[in-house]
């Protein structure tokens, strides 16, 4: 009886949650619609980051570069050759994945801080190329006039309609992620994260595993990048710098790494939070930093980690 009640109430919460998410853009102002869109894009991005940082346990700081590669690929295809969004996006995902492969193979041999610095360096170099290679990337001017997606006569160029496109892709990417994590490959990544040496001894090809994780994360970033470019219809290199790389790191850690819900939660929270805290004006960043420190002291496994801990305690009390 209790079990049935529990599953009923779960179903109820899920239904309400889904309704809210589906109807969200229709009831709020354009300001919040935009935030919803941005949150969705970053959710996909951070979900990808989870593959390499959360699940495979490799300290990569270069994820933002794949975001940039995806965004610029999609943007250039759209602006230079009028490639429609539905082709540009997969192209962007492919481009990012290829870079993920090229960079991953040499770099993933490194561990810990060396990997972090190498990937950080890679991200910086990508940003510099985006800023300086004027002929191709338009340099610091950025790329304007990126075309909105169309399906037949419908043009998705306002925040409400674009929200649904982002939502579609988010659901798709979550689905794919969950399939992967629950499958053999997911367990392989966990083994690598927990103890890479032991995994190798057990016969797991850890290099291949890590590279796959890296490529997957790059693929997700490519998708997110394309969505970002078409959402804003303008991109410039400054969106893909180290400051932003740190933000997506926070999103994953605060949400809870190694968890799909955590990745999404972190992305959504850290998109909305700066806006809610606008009233703090000058003091906003200072409090943000203090918040991070406190969170690390009291909630080192992120919000999802905390929830899991609480759940365990509740269960153990029964």
């Amino acid at each position, binding site marked *: 009886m209790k079990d049935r009640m529990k599953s009923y109430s779960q179903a109820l919460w899920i239904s309400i949650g889904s309704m*809210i998410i589906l109807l969200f853009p229709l*009831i*709020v*102002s*354009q*300001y*919040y619609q*935009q*935030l919803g869109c*941005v949150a969705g894009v970053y959710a996909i991005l951070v979900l990808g980051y989870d593959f390499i940082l959360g699940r495979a346990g490799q300290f990569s700081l270069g994820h933002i570069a794949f975001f940039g590669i995806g965004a610029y690929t999609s943007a250039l295809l759209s602006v230079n050759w009028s490639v429609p969004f539905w082709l540009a996006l997969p192209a962007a995902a492919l481009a990012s994945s290829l870079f993920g492969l090229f960079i991953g193979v040499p770099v993933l041999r490194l561990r810990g801080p060396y990997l972090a610095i190498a990937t950080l360096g890679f991200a910086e170099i990508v940003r510099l190329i985006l800023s300086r290679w004027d002929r191709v990337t338009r*340099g*610091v*001017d*950025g790329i*304007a006039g990126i075309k909105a997606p169309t399906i037949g006569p419908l043009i998705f160029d306002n925040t409400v309609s674009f929200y649904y496109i982002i939502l579609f892709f988010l659901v798709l990417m979550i689905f794919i992620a969950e399939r992967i994590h629950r499958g053999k490959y997911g367990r392989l990544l966990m083994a690598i994260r927990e103890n890479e040496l032991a995994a190798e001894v057990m016969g797991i090809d850890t290099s291949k595993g890590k590279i796959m994780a890296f490529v997957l994360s790059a693929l997700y970033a490519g998708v997110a990048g394309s969505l970002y470019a078409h959402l*804003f*219809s*303008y*991109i*410039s290199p*400054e*969106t893909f710098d180290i*400051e*932003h790389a740190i933000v997506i790191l926070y999103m994953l850690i605060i949400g809870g790494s190694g968890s799909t819900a955590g990745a999404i939660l972190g992305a959504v929270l850290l998109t909305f939070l*700066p*806006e*809610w805290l*606008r009233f703090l*004006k*000058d003091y*906003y*960043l200072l409090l943000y930093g203090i918040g991070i420190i406190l969170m690390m002291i009291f909630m080192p496994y992120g919000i999802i980690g905390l929830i899991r801990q609480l759940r365990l305690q509740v269960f153990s009390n029964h």
Partner: protein
Amino acid sequence: MVLLFLFVTMIATGAFAVNTIRIGFIVPLTTANALIGWGMQHGAALAVKEINEAGGIKGVNIELLSEDNADTNAIAVNALHKVSASKPVALILGSTSSQTMAMSPIIQKAKIPTLIEGSSPKLTDHGNPWFFQPRVTDEFAAIAATRYVVQHLKKTKIGVFHAAEEFGLSTAPVIVKTLEELNLKPVAVVSAPSSDKDVSAQLLQIKNAGADAVIAWVLPAPGVLLARQMKQLKINVPLMANPIFAMPQVLKLMTPEDRADVYSVTDTVPDQDTDPAAQDFVKRYKERTGIMPDLLAAISYDSVKLLAKVIREVGTGPEAIQKALREGKGYRGVANTYTFDEKGRGAWRVMVVDVSGAGLKVLTTVSR
């Protein structure tokens, strides 16, 4: 529970209790560029205060909706959306060109007359009919600066030093082109990222090339270092730069040795303007903030006053405001006299100042 509460607040969109005329004001408040945003804020706020104290616009007060753009595209766009929810009649933007460009498509769609304080010519080149630029473009200023160095200082071997960021990268070619028009070529063109503390390598290149003058387009802090390191390397030639050396807070950091033989091209030097309105502005700004106003504070002040004048004449309709701005001629502000052309560029006079003395000396004025 918490989520539900937050959700409800999201639905409640901006319902304004009091009837005001709202002007959006998006500037950097929390980053390194807060330096610039601070002055802009005070200039605008002073103008709003004066207007409201004199009875507002036909009895209605002006309200400045100011939001931080955090020097980031996405946050600037968020700020724009937030401000738009309150239906402003106009916007004033104090952002870098990257953020302004990110906001452009939205502004164009929403049809809000916007005054931009950026100096990049690209901002009014890309065809947004709602953008108006009351700031002298880098292009115009750079041409004036180059011509002065060649024609008045009689220098022929120019070394060009520019910031590795957007405004530097786009202005360097303008300087080179102007030199070509005067039948000259630069002897060296070097660049440095603004975070670079040591530019001796770049300066040595210029020295090696035998330059007899340096034209620089950089940010304030690197500019001071540049002036200083030039003297340290015994490159004792004139240094001409963008408005940075005419800014009061930058001058404070320089010793008389640093300032020797240094020039700047600037929209205006507020305290040297003999116009009583300008003098008045300087006085009241000093009372309010304790320091001298800089160029951007003056332009913010002018922007608010200009908008007020236009609204007083034609009301708050966006098309009417846009038309009035486009067709108006010679609005005399404290930073400049504005006449907007079909691209939206409105400021066409710069001053060349000699910074080496105790005060700034205006050498000449260059108008279109």
